């Protein structure tokens, strides 16, 4: 089975081509860390990764897409791409939590964090790569302690545990996180925002004249 893996929930623009025939093998990948280039680079990245393997989109059997949590704008670039590819190619798009993809294949207890902006982090805890607590968003000081940490290196002064060195989800991690999903019908592709949109209901109108 040929799987296209993509994620835009972190500053990385991640695309990769993975085969699953018993073993998981990453055939090609393109990852660029540029938080402002998700919309621009994702499609070229996945086409380039496919070209490296001598395949085309028509050869892809399934897509695995990170659904965040992640800063909204970039996250949607990947999800809109995955949804349209799945539609046009008539193949399933399997959602995976981006934090799960970062934790996939790790050993022991782990705290995974990604940048949520506004001085907050998205986070979840894991044990041997399996999720222990649900993804949440909060200030760094409120996060639980763990023997190790992965994901963003931000707030190292608050979260002082050793970092595993893995900052972004990899194509292999994305596909690993989807293990068990791929032979079933795809679940709905719904983004994990964890925050409500910024919007305030207007109060009374400001007067232009003094009463």
């Amino acid at each position: 089975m040929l799987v296209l893996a993509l994620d835009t929930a972190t500053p990385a623009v991640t695309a990769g081509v993975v085969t699953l025939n018993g073993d998981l093998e990453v055939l090609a990948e393109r990852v660029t860390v540029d938080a402002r280039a998700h919309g621009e680079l994702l499609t070229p990245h996945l086409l380039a990764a496919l070209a490296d393997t001598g395949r085309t989109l028509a050869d892809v059997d399934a897509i695995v897409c990170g659904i965040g949590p992640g800063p909204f704008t970039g996250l949607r670039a990947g999800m809109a791409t995955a949804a349209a590819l799945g539609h046009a190619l008539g193949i399933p798009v399997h959602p995976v939590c981006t934090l799960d993809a970062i934790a996939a294949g790790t050993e022991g207890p782990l705290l995974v964090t990604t940048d949520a902006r506004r001085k907050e982090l998205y986070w979840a805890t894991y044990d041997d790569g399996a999720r222990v607590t649900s993804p949440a968003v909060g200030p760094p000081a409120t996060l639980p302690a763990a023997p190790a940490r992965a994901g963003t290196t931000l707030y190292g002064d608050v979260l002082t545990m050793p970092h595993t060195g893995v900052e972004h989800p990899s194509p292999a991690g994305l596909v690993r996180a989807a293990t068990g999903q791929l032979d079933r019908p795809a679940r709905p592709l719904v983004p994990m925002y964890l925050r409500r949109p910024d919007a305030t209901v207007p109060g009374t109108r400001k007067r232009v004249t003094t009463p």
Partner: protein
Amino acid sequence: MSLVLGIESSCDETGAGIAKLHPDGRIELLADEVASSVELHARFGGVVPEVASRAHLEAMVPTVTRAVTKAGVELGDLDAVAVTCGPGLAGALLVGVSAAKAYAAALNVPLYGVNHLPGHVAADTLQHGLLPSPCLALLVSGGHTQLLRVDDLAGKITEVGSTIDDAAGEAYDKVARILGLPYPGGPPIDKAAAKGDPEAIRFPRGLTGPRDAPFDFSFSGLKTAVARWVEHRERDGLPVPVEDVAASFQEAVADVLTAKAVRAANELGIGTMVLSGGVAANSRLSGLAAQRCAEAGIELRVPRPRLCTDNGAMIAALGAHLVAAGTRPSALDLSADPALPVGTVSV
């Protein structure tokens, strides 16, 4: 013959349209599907960008699916994909651009990243056929108020004038709020105005002084003048004649828009005018435009309301014009440009 999918997501409407370019250059509309998030914004009194962007992501594939079904074609039959890449809300544009790139890549067809504003002009060609060259376009909506000279829809478009502050549709929303009418303000003001006296109050006509830019617009002062008038009335303990205020406000907007547009057409020697954008459906604006264009011997073309508001059909139509003109397609590293200049028809 060529089938073009058009995708629009610059503001609060997710649009997918399919247009067919015939060998004789005629462009036929096969599908025009829109999912609007306008109701989600109503209680905020204006479009909330994040709310709009979330709604676009949710609606994109279902809207394209409906368009393909409605057109009676298969995705694999499409020959090109066109998408609005600007101007508009950054996060909203990004959803459409990302999806369009994926559709173009998966279907292995050319992609055209296009400008939303000429899209409004192209919408008219779906109803009234090809446009003469040159023509003048007056685009009026919640997001834009522009006067454009269109020499060639596929390439040569120049701005003659634009608003220096609020868009006309924005002024409608703000005045509706002053009068306690719902959002969006266009339809309720039009309805109230029908029962009011347009000459009851003489509201200011922005930028109409002898030294003002002849073809630019300003609606911020008008909105403030309405607020001031209403507040004085309330201060004096008098009832606010909502219908007269609505009619007088609407008269000021329609008067200044049509006067400047007709003057521009006369000075530039242009005989055809297209009135489009969400506010084009306003009865007084279209009525006064028809009257003044007739007096000046200008042919006025106003697409039906469904084609005037933001939709994917207009983007499909513009894409078809680009295909017909043999325009070079966009690269797949296309990105959204919230401030795309009006002269850039395709990227």
